[in-house]
């Protein structure tokens, strides 16, 4: 009897019905806390933090996006005035918004695709290497992943430096004929990569791809390790080509991994900030803004227009939610959230 009641102290964890009626005999430690209340008590602090630091501000942001919030309002001298949809029309009429939107979408699409392809290729490669070699390469790519985003920006800004950068030196090494054929030029000395929006984004894509493919590769490798080798042997005996094996065995089995990797990559690449901030040298080049930096610049560069900044942030959040909703639904549906 004593034993059964001690088991009941596990609270809701033990599903056996009827045990709960022993609850009143809980020992002193669980005093005053019914097993039913335990998970809520454990959850409360975290939930409060999430509510106070994420959900409530999210609501505030929506409210602010309909208000005029400048310096007097920030300092509490004047109450915020209601602006209706003015901030939104102002944003939509601004051509910088449209170029920022285009930059955000194109960058995310290109980078997510490249990251997944390169990451999967490297993951598959790692799976076929010997254990020693694979560990060696994994340590190498993990160190790229570990570099802080600000330092990533700094490194690639240095590599692409106009005068003393490695990249211009390397491009000058190409045989003139080949360089002429590929790029229509042979002299790369002093090529300023970081003045023009298009080339800034080329550098940004390389930078983000470099730092994010390792995660995809290592995840794919972890997934591949879980697939029984017999499946591949059987396929090979049946004479399947590598591409067919990938399509018919690897991809279907790793589909959950791929969907998670896709969603994480989309989230990360949509809101890229630090690297772009460093490559541009602060929010200066308006043509190269993405939505994050556009919102930041409107809200915090003088004169601060917090309302407009909030409106841009609302639009960014909505886009992100729409893009990722499909995947969230898929995760919720297929993984039954144990």
């Amino acid at each position, binding site marked *: 009897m004593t034993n059964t009641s001690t088991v009941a*102290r596990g609270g809701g964890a033990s599903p056996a019905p009827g045990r709960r009626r022993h609850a009143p005999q809980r020992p002193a430690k669980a005093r005053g806390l019914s097993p039913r209340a335990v998970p809520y008590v454990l959850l409360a602090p975290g939930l409060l933090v999430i509510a106070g*630091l994420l959900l409530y501000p999210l609501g505030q*942001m929506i409210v602010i996006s309909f208000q005029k919030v400048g310096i007097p309002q920030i300092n509490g001298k004047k109450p915020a005035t209601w602006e209706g949809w003015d901030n939104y029309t102002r944003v939509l009429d601004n051509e910088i918004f449209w170029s920022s939107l285009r930059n955000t979408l194109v960058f995310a699409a290109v980078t997510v695709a490249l990251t997944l392809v390169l990451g999967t290729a490297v993951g598959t490669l790692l799976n076929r290497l010997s254990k020693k070699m694979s560990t060696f390469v994994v340590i190498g790519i993990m160190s790229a992943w570990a570099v*802080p985003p600000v330092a990533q920006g700094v490194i690639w800004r240095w590599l692409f430096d106009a005068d003393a950068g490695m990249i211009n030196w390397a491009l000058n090494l190409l045989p003139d004929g080949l360089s002429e054929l590929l790029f229509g030029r042979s002299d790369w000395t002093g090529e300023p990569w970081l003045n023009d929006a298009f080339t800034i984004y080329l550098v940004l894509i390389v930078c983000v791809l*470099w730092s994010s493919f390792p995660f995809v590769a290592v995840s794919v490798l972890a997934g591949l390790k879980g697939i029984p080798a017999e499946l591949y042997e059987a396929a090979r005996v049946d004479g399947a080509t590598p591409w067919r094996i990938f399509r018919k065995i690897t991809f279907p089995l790793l589909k959950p991994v791929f969907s998670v990797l896709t969603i994480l990559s989309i989230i990360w690449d949509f809101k890229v900030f630090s690297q772009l901030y460093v490559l541009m040298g602060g929010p200066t080049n308006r043509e190269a803004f993405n939505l994050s930096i556009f919102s930041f610049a409107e*809200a915090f560069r003088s004169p601060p227009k917090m309302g407009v900044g909030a409106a841009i942030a609302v639009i960014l959040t909505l886009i992100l939610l729409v893009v990722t909703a499909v995947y969230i639904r898929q995760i919720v549906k297929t993984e039954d959230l144990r």
Partner: protein
Amino acid sequence: MTPFARKRLTRIALNAAGLLVFLFAVFPVYWMVSTSFKANDQIFTTDFIPFPTHFTVEHVDRVLSEGVAGNSIWLYMRNSAIVALGTVLIGAALALLAATAIARFTFRGRTSFLILLLIVQMIPAEALLIPLFLNVKRLGLYDQLLGLIVINVGLTLPFGIWMLRTFVAAVPKSLEEAAWIDGASRMTTFWRVLFPLVAPGLVATSIFSFITAWNELIFALILMSDSSGYTMPVALQFFFGQRGTDWGAIMAGSTMMTIPVVVFFLLVQRRMVSGLVAGAVKG
């Protein structure tokens, strides 16, 4: 070609590809470190100097003594460390409690909470920038490291819970049940049975939060107006001066910022990846 020769060739090709990937990943990091130890005549050149033959620690010296924006790099390192450690200490406690609730109990609202965790991770930090800036000002936390700590706890917690719950769930329930049967109280069971087994996962999750807080740029940029409160990511921006960039110094600063992260990362990488993917996939 004999099958043996072909196998050998494949192996060589695979290893070569692996080496190429390794170089692509490591070269930029190497370039950062080597630049920070090169004398200026080897930095500002159109030639390629693979190795610092004019080895010098003058840049490291300079960022430590002169520093940037009026303070030594040490101060910024210290600020970053305070913010990151504060975030980890508070965040780990909160995450452990919540993760235990999710992984060990079935209760009403559990699924909704999990979905909430998923959704809040989609919220871009930029979206919270403006309201959190105003709130921090109102609460008098502007220009204080505590303000940054609080915000970083908020930013890292959802993922922390998400990741930690798989580690809690991985501990066999029968161990705790055995302890209960032996008469251990709920608290004792938690501290003596569950906690030691979850500890490695807690370390991995904490390191993840540490790195996120250590790397955080945007909030540090807007919540700190006084240079003595800058964190490393903000301080690094000030190396890009009007009178050209002191690449030796900025590479030395970046290297110092990067080293602790890379070390931590390599220590927990295996667990971190399984936490990220398993956490997301297995639900």
